[in-house]
């Protein structure tokens, strides 16, 4: 009963927010002269044949992986009150470095992939570490410095891509790094569909999926079950109480930013290791910013972030079929935007409702102080250790 209720209250707010967002979006569409029902039909229509449907699911899952990782990276910062807007720059730097180093070496399969992952995480962490060092030593707001480092990262990545890291021949239409060799790639997971007896589509499900799930579990355990996570969350809830409890606030900033950056370093890898095998001027952009929305939507909780990432990916996928049906694909952006707004509002309302409910139940169990209580305790020192009242 209580568990059902708890899950119910956790899911109620986002579900309600989703509904409100859909209604608002429908109104906006109607105002623009677009039939909302038709849009909805196109969005949920994943295809006619089983193969098409599975392809759509694969597309959604593949898209959700980087969104999930970006959301996770942002959430680590949020949990301790740090706003890491720099995920965008962190994953760009991480991906180009990982792509270049990955292409430069040849190692036995798993080691090669592991090296690429480690490089990406290290570069992401270092790039985020700059933000942390600036904040701790010079008091620079992480919001400002991470935005600036985003711009620097984009510029630096372009320079590296067209200069020292260039792997494509002169005159190619897309500039790219050299391709990562066979051993450094992650094969698809489409074998799963055969096992489940489903149609096996031509599009490959990214092999990075289990790694992302693992990252989600590790982050969840770290935040919810360890001392480090407790210190981090305590700092987020009340920096003054955390430092009075012995948390070194500066060190915590550095650790949290390094962790956030390391996860951010993974954001580009599902695409890099599963599809492109190179970093190029056309590489998926904007994931860092979408991660902020995904983290908000998922309430900074790995499970919620996973759901939010899938929802965002589902909406993203719809933009192509919408264009095919000559409907404006920008409705996707409208829905995504209103969802974030509605969720932020709904979360706040849910928080207040649950606080009031807790206060009510506490009042019932507490009750007014009985009149004789003071006199009784004042003269019997034993009452405190007996705990009877």
């Amino acid at each position, binding site marked *: 009963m209580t568990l059902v209720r708890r899950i119910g209250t956790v899911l109620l707010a986002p579900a309600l927010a989703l509904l409100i967002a859909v209604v608002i979006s429908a109104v906006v569409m109607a105002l623009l002269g677009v039939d909302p029902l038709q849009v909805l039909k196109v969005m949920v229509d994943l295809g006619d044949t089983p193969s098409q449907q599975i392809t759509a699911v694969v597309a959604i899952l593949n898209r959700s992986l980087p969104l999930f990782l970006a959301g996770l990276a942002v959430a680590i910062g949020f949990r301790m009150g740090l706003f890491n807007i720099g995920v965008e720059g962190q994953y760009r730097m991480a991906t180009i470095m990982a792509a270049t180093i990955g292409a430069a070496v040849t190692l036995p399969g798993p080691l090669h992939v592991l090296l690429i992952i480690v490089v990406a995480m290290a570069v992401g962490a270092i790039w985020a570490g700059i933000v942390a060092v600036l904040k701790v030593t010079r008091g620079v707001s992480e919001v400002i410095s991470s935005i600036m480092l985003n711009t620097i990262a984009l510029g630096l990545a372009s320079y590296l891509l067209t200069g020292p890291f260039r792997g494509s021949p002169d005159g190619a239409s897309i500039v790219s790094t050299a391709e990562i060799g066979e051993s450094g790639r992650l094969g698809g997971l489409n074998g799963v569909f055969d096992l489940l007896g489903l149609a096996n589509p031509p599009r490959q499900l990214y092999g990075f999926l289990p790694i992302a799930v693992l990252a989600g579990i590790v982050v969840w355990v770290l935040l919810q079950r360890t001392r480090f996570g407790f210190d981090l969350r305590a700092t987020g809830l009340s920096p003054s109480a955390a430092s009075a*409890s012995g948390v070194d606030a500066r060190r915590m900033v550095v650790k949290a930013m390094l962790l956030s950056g390391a996860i951010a370093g993974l954001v580009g890898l599902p695409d890099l290791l599963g599809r492109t095998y190179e970093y190029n001027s056309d590489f998926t952009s904007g994931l860092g910013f979408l991660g902020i929305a995904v983290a908000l939507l998922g309430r900074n909780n790995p499970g919620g972030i996973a759901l939010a990432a899938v929802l965002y990916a589902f909406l993203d996928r719809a933009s192509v079929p919408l264009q095919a049906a000559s409907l404006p694909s920008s409705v996707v952006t409208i829905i995504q935007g209103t969802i974030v707004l509605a969720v932020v509002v709904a979360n706040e309302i849910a928080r207040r409702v649950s606080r009031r409910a807790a206060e009510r139940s506490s*009042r019932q169990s507490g009750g007014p102080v009985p009149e004789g209580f003071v006199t009784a305790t004042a003269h019997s020192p034993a009452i*405190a250790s007996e705990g009877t009242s």
Partner: protein
Amino acid sequence: MTESTPLAVELRGITKRFPGVVANKDIELRVARGEVHAIVGENGAGKSTLMKTLYGMHRPDEGQILVDGREVQLRSPNDAIAAGIGMVHQHFMLADNFTVLENIVLGSEPTKGGRLDRATARRRIAEISDSYSLGLEPDVLVEELGVGDRQRVEIAKVLYRGATILILDEPTAVLVPQEVDELFGNLAELKREGLTVIFISHKLDEVRKVADSITVIRRGTTVGTADPATTSARQLAEMMVGAELPTPATRDSTVRETPVLRISGLTVPGTGGGRAAVDDVTMTVREGEVVGIAGVEGNGQSELIDAVLGLRSPSAGTVVLGDEDITAWSTRQRREGGIGFIPEDRHRQGMLLEAPLWENRILGHQTRPPAVKGAFIDRKGARADTARIMAEYDVRAPGPDTPAVALSGGNQQKLIVGREMSAHPRVLVAAHPTRGVDVGAQSVIWELLKDARAEGLGIVLVSADLEELIGLSDTLHVMLRGRLVATVDPRQVTPEELGGYMTGGTEAGAA
């Protein structure tokens, strides 16, 4: 005080309940027009709750509020302002980077064509300043003003909004003696112009000096009124404390020889780069000893505590815990080394309000069982130990999973005390341990501190409650402007004498 003119403010049977505690019960208050009416009571007696009711910050559960003989419903401070009631808060609410003029008009700006009408504002402020002798300079930035001037700006702010009844919440807590005299001069001007002042305080000497009549609050209810001309401070104190409250009678000394905390030559720089916040403080706490520190708030007590806990680095001096010099230790090392902490502001430093009680049990003890196992949080252990603390220390809450914010102040404080005691500290730093808690919790906390002292715990006690200090302390230091200026014997000293040392004057004690 003739019966024909209606009373400026009358409260009938006001009752206000909070979760787990009745903060105000059957409050009766009658304030005549044109008088300074003091409301006195101990910390936690319910003065602030009463004033919040009168200023519309919350609504009473029962009772009537009458202003100028008419019953009013105060749903918000705006209603109170409309009824002519203004509040000067203890903590000033001014924008530092605005001028005096801008601060005064902020929120009710006179406008001309959509723009701030400075000429009108200036004229009205000049009128207010002249008629009440406030001596305001409209164009000075508030950040350049001293505490006394800021308070006058706050008063002007209230007058500007047309208040005829002013509530002053502990106005002297932040003032030095000369400023207190100036404030009393201002209050006399206000009175002369026919305004009514409700003056909240627990400083009896000041109250007797300034008030025309006094209402005493004890344990959430009004216990009577007194005429300051004929009532002695002693009699007032008895009314305030009440016979049935534990007069913290001196028990047998439990002080042992072994020092547990030695502070020598400790100096902490001030925040503004001015004079040192803590200036060359030397003191020793022995096993089983309560060392009290008396002082008007803002004389370096908070900074001293921060330095002992490692939250603020001293510029000179040493702190020795047992035999170890801990001056360079981190806060966590000090906590692990056996320093327990009851912070002065439990919401800021003692609790994670949004977190459940069992997580609050862990706070400050993140490195020790039963809350943790190695690098992991022991959720089961923490929950079980929270339940134990709740039972042993009478924390009234539904269970360990209740968020801390749902508890009343007294229950939050009992949880903090229980948590700190459960770690068996060698030294306990307790700042205002019974501030803002109901009287039941107050007695429990006092008993706990006494028991812990008997078991050999060394306690540093900072408090604004002189009875508490005198009753619990074995040694009592007085802190003034960052220095320990006097050490008195708590068995001999009276609150009046103590007050004299605290303000730097020696003429107190006359009462």
